């Protein structure tokens, strides 16, 4: 069965302490539903993008490491699921629920390959 990345995005000034009980419950219910459907392969929450480290390949196999996220954007991935779904429509249905539960915009992309 195809696997999909369902990634939620947070603004860089996102404050997790504002996540209320209702949101925690909604996320919990969604995870239960994904688990019961056998769809959930992985769920993870990331540290704020400000604490990311970026690596840029340089000539001669050197690598330059800098603080902060790689992409210059005002929002970054805050967490994601890897889900198994019959097709893109089914993955989008989960993505839709993720938007509602996490109060955050979502991107859905299919994996070409997944090595467990």
């Amino acid at each position: 069965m195809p696997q999909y990345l369902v990634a939620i995005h947070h603004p860089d000034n996102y404050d997790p302490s504002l996540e209320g009980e209702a949101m925690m419950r909604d996320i919990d219910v969604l995870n239960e539903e994904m688990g019961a459907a056998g769809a959930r392969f992985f769920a993870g929450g990331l540290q704020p993008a400000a604490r990311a480290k970026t690596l840029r390949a340089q000539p001669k196999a050197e690598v330059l490491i800098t603080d902060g996220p790689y992409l210059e954007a005002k929002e970054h991935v805050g967490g994601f699921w890897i889900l198994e779904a019959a097709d893109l429509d089914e993955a989008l249905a989960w993505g839709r629920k993720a938007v509602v539960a996490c109060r955050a915009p979502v991107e859905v992309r299919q994996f070409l390959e997944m090595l467990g």
Partner: protein
Amino acid sequence: MPQYMVVNYLPDNFDPSTVDEATVHAIDVLNEEMIAAGVRLLVGGLSPASSAKSLRAQPNGEVRITDGPFLEAKEHVGGFCILEAEDMDEALAWARKSAIACRVSGEVREIPYSSLPSGTAHPSRQHERKP
């Protein structure tokens, strides 16, 4: 042990047919090394960002779906590896090898909450772990 995500970024016009045999071999060798070290939990390669769909909540409570990636950028995530490491320095050492093997730029982010057996449950899930 903390979990980290090592992300590789690809330009949106990336052509997979330009990846030469030496690169494929270097990636293979790195994967073998990660497996031998017992650090590699999960590896995935994504379809091109142009095939992504973006979902945004609307003021009326509906969710609008559009074609294309969510972030407006010229590069997007091409794939990633989730690994276990003692600390950020050890994760960066693997990311450095990954950047060299894959000939691409990347990023390392810690994953404080993970559903993997060795991970810490998200606050919404922590009731599961109570005795």
